[in-house]
């Protein structure tokens, strides 16, 4: 499908308006320095603008997450280099967030999460933080729905095993949480 330039502009503006914030959150969650997200969000939407005909109508956001994932990987390969994009966005993001120390029990989950492979961590993050279901995961990762479901299941099992291992001497905290859940 190829739109006339005005239609194309409207389509992109809708895409940008609807999905700017989720894409920004996606990138911020995976960066150490929040303001770096400005460049990566800009790059993600530049790619979307350039490839607007490839954006699936029903899975636009998971598709954008897939693009952002590759942009983020390029950023990491570049060893945190920055380039001049989206100055105002960078300025707005410069204010550092108020981050609270994770609770004692959550630190075990955080540590276990960090021990997972990059692929497992990304899969679980997409499910937990971006709230994707298996169909959306499949769209974001470019695999079949069945494959996404199996990969998610396995990643969850691996995380559970790591948490069990890391909390073996601290079962009380988790038991208390679990009983409340």
């Amino acid at each position, binding site marked *: 499908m190829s739109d006339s330039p005005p239609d194309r502009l409207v389509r992109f503006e809708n895409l940008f308006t609807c999905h700017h914030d989720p894409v920004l959150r996606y990138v911020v969650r995976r960066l150490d320095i929040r303001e770096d997200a400005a460049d990566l969000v800009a790059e993600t939407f530049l790619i979307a603008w350039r490839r607007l005909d490839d954006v699936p109508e029903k899975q636009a956001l998971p598709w954008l997450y897939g693009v952002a994932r590759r942009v983020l990987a390029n950023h990491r390969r570049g060893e945190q280099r920055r380039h001049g994009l989206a100055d105002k966005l960078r300025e707005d993001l410069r204010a550092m967030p108020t981050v609270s120390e994770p609770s004692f029990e*959550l630190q075990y989950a955080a540590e276990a999460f960090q021990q997972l492979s990059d692929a497992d961590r990304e899969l679980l993050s997409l499910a937990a933080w971006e709230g994707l279901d298996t169909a959306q995961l499949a769209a974001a990762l470019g695999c079949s729905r069945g494959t996404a479901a199996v990969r998610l299941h396995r990643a969850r099992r691996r995380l559970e095993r790591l948490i069990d291992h890391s909390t073996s001497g601290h079962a009380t905290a988790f038991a208390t949480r679990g009983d409340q859940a």
Partner: protein
Amino acid sequence: MSKPDTLDLLRQLDPTAGDDPAKAVGDDARTQLLGGITASPAGAQTRRPRVAARRLVPVLAAAAVIAAVAVTVVRLPGDSRQEALGPALSFTTEGKFLKVRVVDPEADSARFNKEFKEHGLDIKLKLIPSSPSIVGQHTAAGFGPDSENIETTVYPAGCDNPPSYPCVPEFTIPVDYKGHAELYIGRAAKPGERLVQSGRIDGRGEPLQGVTYVGQTVATVLKILEEGGYTAEYRVKVGNDHQSRDTVPPGWVVLDGSLVTTKHAVLFVSPKR
């Protein structure tokens, strides 16, 4: 005894929970970004070089401003200075690829772009204020149809900075490349200027060149910085994010760092090694 659901646990680790970054983004930032993107060449609509080249200018406001500054610096009567300086780029053909090497990293955007144009390439090199160790190096950002076909490496191959110097960008471009691209290269920053990109803080020309600073105390590293006329602020990792601090206990250790202006650094620190 039931265990908490793993996804529920992870939700509690969401780095943006309770502090949504989208709330910090104002309308101006959104408008600038949307306007910049839609002013850029758009896939199928980029086959008219004159129009597209003109529309490239406002692609990214920051980059455009940086380029404009560089151009202003050399806006002198005549081109004698440029000619006296020799070429800024070298072009060699190797099979199906054109190797473009930056032989004068101090050159300005106008010289780079003129030389690309002379070789029939619609490629813009943008100069980005950078910390000393990566001046002249590429940052490999290219936006345009097929621009991903341009490979960016360094010359001599595999060089780093330090130890080998000069270590300059090299672009490998298919000989039949017809698209647009914008490539970014580090330039020296003006005194006090905010850097857009930074190299390692112990790299060549950086404040801690030659210093084994990782694991040293904040007091030790800060003393070295202050002797060089630098100031510092700090980042402390909390959960999956970093908190900003103006001061931290002097006994904390330094894990990483980078310059953010020509005289101000950010140090990533931790209470323990």
